[in-house]
């Protein structure tokens, strides 16, 4: 083959430019830390990256949902414990008040304390988590219980709010005031107990003590189901964080460069470039003219 100067020059130029392109690509990867900067860099990796990102994004929302739910359920849990212990205190008072030998003035004092406990229970039932009244079912913007004299009204509804804690898995939040206070007749019985104390009606007091036990059973049952939900949430959030770790790792494998690898490639590419420059200098210079007198 006949070789001309231009052929050599073009070849040298093309090779230099190819080498520089490779160096540029490696430098780009090093400075961005990413292997894939547009789909055509690696379509297979691209679709995985996009899917992993979507999963991670949904997971971060589920984590937020779970955290939120946990806060609410912990408050609800405390509230139910509070209600339970308050009812225990009521029971103790009722036992004392049921004693035939107790003077009526003491019963009046017990009734007075009971009234305050009723107020306390209402206060607990009206607990809110940053402005959200948790015992009101869907009606979370108003305090669910309202006392007018001896009548306590429930203003919430019977809908249990649900939160999605992972894909297609929803979980109940706080039980409604309807199940806790209305269906059990908690306040009617407490008022009735108070009236019995004031009226010295010990048989009525005894009867209400029986009712009180049933109410406490119900409250405790709700509390334990709430505890079960809390542990389920805990389990779920572990699952989510495991999944996060796994997907972050997968994403990184598809998306991130291995720095040592790229640096090494860059060095070798730079060497090749240096070599091609030296070769160019040697090949391009000489011509017959240099050697003619």
């Amino acid at each position: 083959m006949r070789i001309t100067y231009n052929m050599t020059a073009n070849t040298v130029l093309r090779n230099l430019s190819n080498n520089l392109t490779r160096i540029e690509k490696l430098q780009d990867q090093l400075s961005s830390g990413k292997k894939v900067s547009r789909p055509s860099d690696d379509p297979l990796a691209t679709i995985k990256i996009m899917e992993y990102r979507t999963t991670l994004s949904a997971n971060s929302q589920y984590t937020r949902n779970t955290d939120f739910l946990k806060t609410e359920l912990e408050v609800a849990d405390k509230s139910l414990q509070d209600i339970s212990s308050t009812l225990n205190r009521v029971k103790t008072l009722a036992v004392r008040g049921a004693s035939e030998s107790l003077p009526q003035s003491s019963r009046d004092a017990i009734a007075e304390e009971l009234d305050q406990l009723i107020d306390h229970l209402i206060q607990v039932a009206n607990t809110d988590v940053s402005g959200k009244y948790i015992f009101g079912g869907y009606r979370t913007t108003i305090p669910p219980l309202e006392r007018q004299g001896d009548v306590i009204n429930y203003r919430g509804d019977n809908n249990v709010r649900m939160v999605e804690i992972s894909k297609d898995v929803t979980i109940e939040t706080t039980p409604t005031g309807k199940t806790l206070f209305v269906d059990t007749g908690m306040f009617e019985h407490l008022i009735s107990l108070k009236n019995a104390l004031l009226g010295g009606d010990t048989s009525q007091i005894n009867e209400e003590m029986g009712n009180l036990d049933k109410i406490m059973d119900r409250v405790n049952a709700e509390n334990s189901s709430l505890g079960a939900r809390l542990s389920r949430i805990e389990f779920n959030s572990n699952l989510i964080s495991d999944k996060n770790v796994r997907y972050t790792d997968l994403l990184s494998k598809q998306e991130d460069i291995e720095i040592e690898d790229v640096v090494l490639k860059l060095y070798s590419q730079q060497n090749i470039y240096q070599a091609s420059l030296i070769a160019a200098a040697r090949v391009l210079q000489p011509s017959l003219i240099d050697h003619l007198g």
Partner: protein
Amino acid sequence: MISSFLGIEIAKRALFVNRTALDITSHNIANANTEGYSRQEGLISTTLPISLPSVGIIGTGAELRSIRRVRNEFLDIQYRDENRIKDYWDELKSTLEKIEYILGEPSDSGLSSTIDKFWNSWQELSTNPESMAIRGSLKEQAETLLSILSHIRGGLIQLRDQLDKDLVIQVNNVNDMAVQLGALNEEIKRSYIRGQSPNDLLDKRDLLLDRLSEYINFDVNINEVGEAIINIRDHTLVGINNKVYKMTVLDGQVLWDDGSNVYLKNEQGRLSSVIYARDNLIGVVDDRGYNYETGILNAIDRLASVIFNRVNELHGTGYGLDNSTGNDFFSLIDAGKGVIASNIKISDVILQDLSKIAASTVMDSPGDGSNALNIARINREFLIDGSFTIGDYWNNQTDSLGIISQRANWLFENQNTLVDAIEKERESVSGVSIDEEVINMIRYQNAFSAASRILTTMDEMLSILIEKTGVVGR
């Protein structure tokens, strides 16, 4: 009997031939870096000999028969065929690169991630439907989504318009080249008729044909008077006697002057590439009267309309904090236009009062986020072609473009290597080698010097005859 002056004549011819050959060498060296130049060489041959009776035939020196350019026509045809394909992929590759840039994937701020965040905002609202702050951030997230949709669509439309402009520029280039080719044909014809080979003009014409091959597929036939007749399919671009048929662009289509279509489908070359990218990859939409089912523009509109319709459908069934119902979440900016990605806004009712965002499925239920949850769960519904979720659909569209783009890159690289190889072969035949020219220079110089010496010798011999003869005894 031969003339005593024959020797001088031969020496004169030698001087002339070698000096002219040196001129050719000089011309070659001068054009060593001229694009499209083919090296030229003089064809030197012996002149008619003289027959001497009883002696034999005696030579009468040399003459320059012709100056020819060294070129392989077959390589030209090969070059143009492959170059056309190379430039097709080159053009397509750079358009795809721009589309990928507009789509901006994969990234944390791309459409895919923004759609995810949009659904997340509904999830967030479903857990805290009473919160005005969360309603506010949902509104912001929805606006981000709309602005990205509209930004991508705008970018694609801009690119499409740019391709339209490119097409016009390219067609103008083709027309210009056709005109120049016609003019060159005329000049070449004049030389041909005189029986000469206009090497430099032929080089110029070949270079123009090389350039033309970037744009379009054509056939060249050189007729007996040296005119290059250029046909595109069965339509003539450059005919005999400098007749040039031009192309125009009308409504984005390339037409001949007589109104018929220029055949460009699957023909490679830049023109085909631009049209393919515009009509099939981006996809011209209805504002121009065509509506292609393929193309990324169609995809983004489809995506936008699915989000628009489904969110509105679910939103209309729910209740806001103020018990309002039947409200649309999204509305059209310009009701006259359809549901396209750049024509969507958050409806005025919602913008004026965020409490109207219908998070609940039941009235009087500020704490009910179940409708918001339903909307958040749109992300897992197979709403497109019955088999794609919104997210999958977009990922797939992006990825198919990535695959096409990757292929275009590969094919361009391969084709580039091939064209380089042919170019090298062509350069090997036609390129000027300085070393070679310098050697020729020395050869001709030596021959010239020798011829001068012969002339001097002849001169001396004759002067002996003229001055010394017949003076014996003087």
